C-alpha cells in the first residue's frame, strides 16, 4: 500500500490530488504501468514520461529506483519555482 500524489497538470489529467494504491510494484515505472491499465486518464497523464518527475518519500528520485519501504510517491511536471 502506497500513497500516490499528483501535482500540477498531472493532478488535473488524473482528476485527483492523491490516492492510496494497493500495489506490489517494484519501481515507479512498474507502478505507472499498473495505473495505466486501471484507467485511460493515467495513460493520458503518463503518455510522455520524459515530462514527468518522481519523488519517493519527498526526495527527487528516478523511475527505476526500488519502491520497497517507500510510503509516499509523488508524480509531477518539471518544477518551476523561484
Amino acid at each position, binding site marked *: 500500500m502506497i500513497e500516490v500524489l499528483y501535482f500540477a497538470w498531472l493532478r488535473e489529467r488524473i482528476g485527483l490530488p492523491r490516492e492510496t494504491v494497493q500495489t506490489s510494484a517494484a519501481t515507479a515505472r512498474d507502478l505507472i504501468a499498473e495505473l495505466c491499465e486501471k484507467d485511460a486518464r493515467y495513460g493520458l497523464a503518463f503518455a510522455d514520461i520524459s515530462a514527468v518527475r518522481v519523488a519517493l518519500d519527498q526526495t527527487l528520485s528516478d523511475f527505476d529506483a526500488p519502491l520497497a519501504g517507500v510510503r509516499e510517491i509523488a508524480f509531477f511536471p518539471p518544477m*518551476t*519555482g523561484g
Partner: protein
Amino acid sequence: MLRIQEAAFDLGAEANAFDATGAGAVVTFSGIVRDNGGLLIGMQIEHYPAMTEKAIAAMMDQARARWDLVNVLVIHRHGYLPVGAPIMMVATAALHRVAAFEAAEFLMDYLKSRAPFWKQEITATGATWVQAKPQDEAALRRWGK
C-alpha cells in the same frame, strides 16, 4: 531561515530584519509576478508541502557548506499572487561579495528547477502551466550538478 507561506512579505522589512552581523556583503534577490506584456492578471503557485521545506533546507545546507555564509534566508510563497506581487526572496550575507553573490545565484538556480513549486499563469481567458525552461536546467551545470 526558511519560510514557505501564502501571505505576502515586505522586501525592505525582510532585508532589514536579516541579521548580517559581522558580514561585509549582503545580497538579496526577489522575484516578482510580471505582467508579461499586459496579458497576465496573476499567478497561481501550487506546491508539495511535505517536500518543499525538506528540499529547500537541503539547498541551504549545500550553500552553507560551499560558501562561508554569515546568514542565509529563503522565503517562497504559494497560492494566488496578483501581478506585481513578490513571489519569493533569497538573502545571503558573507564576508566578501563573491561568496554572497554566488550563494544567492546557486540558491536561485536550485529553487527554479528543484523546489517543488508549479506556476500557473492566469489570464482573462484561462490558466496555463508555466513550462520549465531548458536554460534553467542548464544553469545547474555551473554548480557541478
